[in-house]
C-alpha cells in the first residue's frame, strides 16, 4: 500500500463530524483561559496579602474553584466530553465534599462537655499559652 493510498483511506475512515472538528479546532480559548488564570492568580495574591479575616479563606477558595473550573472545562476538554467522563469527575467532587464537610463539621461543633481534658481536638489543646478563650481568633 503506497503513501498516497493510505492517506486517501484515512479521509474516508474519519467520521465526518470529527474531520470538521479538526479543521475548526482553535487555540484561542486556551490563550483566553491562560490569561484569565494569570489574572485570577494576581487576584488571589492581592486579596491574600490584605489578610481580610473571616472572608480571606472564602475568597481564596472561591477564586481557586473558578480557576479549577476553567482548567477542567477548557484545558481538560470536559466542556466537550461525553456524559460518562463528566459523571466520573462530578462523582469524585461529591465524595470530596462529603469527606470535607462531615469531617470539618464534626470538629467545628465539638463543645466543652463533649471533650474531656486530653481528648484530641478538644477545646483545650489548641489554645496558645496565655490566651483566654475570648482572645482566640476565629
Amino acid at each position, binding site marked *: 500500500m503506497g503513501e498516497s493510498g*493510505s492517506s486517501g483511506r484515512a479521509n474516508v475512515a474519519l467520521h465526518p463530524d470529527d474531520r470538521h472538528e*479538526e479543521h475548526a479546532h482553535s487555540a484561542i480559548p486556551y490563550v483566553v483561559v491562560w490569561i484569565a488564570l494569570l489574572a485570577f492568580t494576581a487576584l488571589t495574591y492581592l486579596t491574600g496579602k490584605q489578610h481580610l479575616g473571616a472572608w480571606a479563606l472564602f475568597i481564596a477558595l472561591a477564586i481557586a474553584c473558578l480557576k479549577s473550573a476553567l482548567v477542567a472545562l477548557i484545558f481538560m476538554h470536559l466542556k466537550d466530553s461525553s456524559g460518562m467522563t463528566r459523571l*466520573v469527575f462530578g462523582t469524585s467532587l461529591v465524595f470530596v465534599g462529603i469527606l470535607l464537610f462531615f469531617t470539618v463539621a464534626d470538629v467545628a461543633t465539638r463543645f466543652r462537655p463533649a471533650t474531656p481534658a486530653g481528648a484530641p481536638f478538644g477545646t483545650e489543646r489548641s489554645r496558645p499559652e496565655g490566651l483566654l478563650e475570648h482572645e482566640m481568633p476565629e
Partner: protein
Amino acid sequence: MSPEAASLPEGILAHHFASLERQNEAMRLGMWLFLATEILLFAGLFTGYSVYRFEFPLAFAECSRHLSLTAGTVNTIVLITSSFTVALSIHFARTDQRRAAVVCLALTILLALGFLGIKAIEYTAHFREHALPGKYYAFEEVKIPGAAMFYTLYFMMTGLHGLHVVAGMSVLTWLLWRTNQGRYSSRYYTGLELGGLYWHLVDLVWIFLYPLLYLI
C-alpha cells in the same frame, strides 16, 4: 480488517474495539477514573489540613507568613503556564503541526523543571531553619502549638504534589519522544491527550495548595 483500522498506523486500534472512536472514549473514561482516585487521594490530605487549620488557626497563619510568598506565586504562574503549553501541544498535534507540538511539550517539561527547582530552593531554606515535620520541628521563629503540624502537612502536601510533578514530567518526556516520531496527529492523539489530562490535574492540585499554604 475494517477500512478504519487499515488506515491507522499499526498498533493503535486494539482488536477488541469495534472502532477508534469507542477506543478513544474508553481511554478517556479510564483516565478520568484514575484522576478521580487521584483527586480523592489529595482530598484526604486537604481534609487533614482543614481539621488542623481549624484546630490551630494561629499557628497556621503564623507559619504561612514564614513561607516565601514570592516563590509560591512564581511557581503558580509557572505551573499555570505549563498547563497552557501542554494544552497547546495537544492542539498542535491534532491540527498536524508536529514541530510546534514538540516545542510546546519541551517547554512544558522545562517549566516543570523550573517548578521543581524553585521548590528545592524553598525546601533547602526549611531544612536550614529546621522548619521540619513532627518531632524534627525546631524552628526558632514560630514556637506555638500546631506549628509542627503545619509543616508536617506542608511537606506531605507539597511532597506528594512534587512526586506527581516528577511522574508527570516522565510521562511528558515519553510523549515528547512519541510526538517527535509522528505518532500523534489529527487521526489519533488520544494518548497525548491523556498525558495532558494528568498534567492538568497536577496544576489543579497546586491551584488549591497555593492559597491554602502561602496565603493564610
